[in-house]
């Protein structure tokens, strides 16, 4: 196993399209690194450059101590799982898995032992004599995995390997891939556009946007300390609620004015975000995760500074909880980064955002306890967990107080 490091890597295609810029990142030995981002963000390009399937236009990629820029894929000692599996259709499962070993002139006994071992790990023992056309989608996916693990390569590269499976199987294979990776202790670079996959599988997650690295961090850090509006709205499901709020000084502390109501910012929160003080008197982007909103009637004694009132639009009963869509009389955050994340889901969501902005209304989502009596059309009083509020500069789109965009300290927001 080995490390993978990107040093100022860039990719420009022959037609002049730029897919990746100044990409710098170190993947540790044995680490499960996930590249995530909307389509066209450059994540697959970065992966293919490691594999040697895409020329490196700028910078340097190292696997272990070797600069691999000019090396043919076969000399890089990497294995890759493709989105569409790319199995050899005329070969049996056994031959598919054994192929790379055969090409490398491994002794036949050794090949047999290793293929059997890979088949055992993946539960493919009974399918070895079949051809890909006779297999189910999940089995083909496993064969593709088998082809990679049998090699025992320096690095595993996986390009959205689960995107062609149905939802239930995907959850199962997600756990399985994570288990196999852990078992083999293999350095892995995994590309996905599904933030849930990224959060559940990665030791660290690198978020990309338009060919630029936005943030690299362990999943929980990414969730709790997003570097900018893009990461904040991309990571999390349902996504973070983002509204415009006026920041004001009040009684020696800070308050946040949303929809005519004031949220008190606890002293600890303000201290943990140096620089927030400077925004007093300005409008900032306020981020509230759905789980930070609770029906106030379920929360007991809620001080006035932690309350928000709004009108319930829709309620989704999920059995264990209830997702309440509540309309606030405040403008949504409509910066470019937020639009992009919305557009990645569907273009219609950008139109929704624009109509909300015109009406100065924002629908926020709260995860309420199942006992909540909130029903569509009624007003609801919400308890806001103000200890974990997120603040963003609406100009630079960066998080206020901490977090960096590319890991370079000079780009920290003021």
């Amino acid at each position: 196993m080995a490390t993978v490091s990107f040093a100022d890597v860039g990719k420009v295609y022959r037609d002049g399209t730029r897919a990746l810029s100044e990409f710098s990142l170190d993947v540790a030995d044995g680490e499960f690194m996930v590249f995530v981002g909307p389509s066209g963000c450059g994540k697959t390009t970065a992966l293919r450059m490691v594999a040697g399937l895409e020329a490196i236009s700028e910078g340097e990629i190292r696997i272990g101590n070797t600069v691999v820029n000019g090396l043919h894929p076969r000399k890089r000692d990497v294995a890759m799982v493709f989105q569409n599996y790319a199995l050899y259709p005329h070969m049996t499962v056994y031959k598919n898995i054994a192929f790379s070993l055969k090409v490398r002139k491994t002794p036949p006994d050794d090949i047999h032992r290793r293929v059997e071992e890979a088949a055992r790990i993946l539960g493919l023992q009974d399918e070895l004599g079949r051809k890909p056309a006779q297999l189910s989608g999940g089995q083909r996916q496993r064969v593709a995995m088998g082809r990679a693990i049998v090699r025992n390569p320096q690095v595993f590269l996986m390009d959205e390997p689960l995107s062609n499976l149905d939802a239930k199987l995907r959850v199962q294979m997600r756990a399985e891939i994570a288990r196999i990776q852990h078992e083999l202790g293999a350095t892995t670079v995994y590309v996905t556009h599904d933030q849930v996959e990224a959060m559940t599988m990665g030791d660290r997650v690198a978020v990309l946007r338009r060919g630029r690295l936005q943030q690299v961090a362990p999943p929980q850090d990414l969730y709790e300390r997003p570097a900018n509006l893009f990461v904040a709205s991309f990571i999390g499901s349902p996504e973070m609620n983002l509204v415009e709020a006026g920041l004001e000084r009040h009684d020696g502390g800070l308050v946040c004015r949303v929809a005519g109501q004031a949220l008190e910012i606890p002293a600890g929160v303000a201290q943990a975000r140096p620089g927030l003080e400077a925004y007093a008197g300005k409008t900032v982007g306020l981020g509230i995760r759905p789980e930070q909103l609770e029906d106030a009637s379920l929360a007991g004694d809620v001080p006035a500074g932690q309350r928000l009132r709004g009108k319930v639009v829709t309620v989704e009963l999920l059995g264990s909880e209830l997702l309440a869509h509540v309309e606030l009389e405040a403008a949504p955050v409509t910066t470019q980064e937020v639009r992009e994340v919305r557009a990645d889901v569907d273009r219609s969501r950008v139109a929704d955002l624009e109509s909300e902005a015109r009406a100065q209304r924002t629908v926020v989502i709260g995860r309420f306890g199942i006992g909540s009596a909130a029903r569509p059309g009624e007003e609801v009083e919400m308890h806001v967990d103000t200890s974990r509020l997120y603040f963003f500069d609406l100009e630079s789109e960066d998080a206020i107080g901490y977090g960096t965009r590319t890991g370079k300290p000079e780009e920290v927001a003021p």
Partner: protein
Amino acid sequence: MTAHRVGRVVSYVVMILIGVVAAAPFLYLLVLSFKSRIDILTVPPTLHFDWSQIKSNYGNVVHEQGYITYIENSAIVTGASTLIALALGVPAGYAFSRLHFRGSDTLASTILSFRFMPPVAVAIPIFLMIRYLGLVNGYLGLILPYVAFTLPLVVWIMIGFFDEIPHEIDEAAMVDGLTRPWVLLRVLLPLVRPGILVAATFGVIFIWNEFLVGLYIVNSQGHWTIPIAASSLLTVESPIDWNIAATVGILTVIPILVFSMLVQRYIVRGITAGAVR
């Protein structure tokens, strides 16, 4: 009878009619090749066959007229030309399908346009070139132009077949440890086998039947191919022996018929099923 069965009967009748129309000339030829010179004028031909007459017709063509040699010549020229065209055209098709170099699309369509040129238009220049090279009256003098005629078709058929194979297969094979040429030989050739056979069939049929260019290039009887030999039956000196001409026709068709039937069994599509998704 239900409408469904009526439909079946009608479709069978139509299919049989089509079959008869297609097969009739060939059957007529076969019958004629069994007849004596006088009998061939009987219309419709009787189905009374005389074994000694059959033997004499075929014996005459094979031994006296030397058709064994002509079939051999045709087989050598056709086989060699087709193999060379495949050896050049398959890698070319792969390259056009996968490597998008500057002007590759233009080049590919230019290659195909060469095929639109009728042999009549190019026969004389080809003859002059072959003569200049001193290859007149030899196999090579026929093989070179035939390769040139067949190659564009092979390239185009192969581009189509290679395009149907997902690029990821190549990439997977390269990551697995193969260079491009080996990817073609070890992974892709088995997958495009139907395409190779289709291209080979077109090539063989065209070359086997080619007459005009051959007529210019080959003068010595020892190097005649079947179409040229067959044309020599038409002479000003003597009336045409139609029964002998029919026998020649049968002997010309049989090798190509056998080849087509053998190859057809392997031309099955959908071999790439299961590669992706």
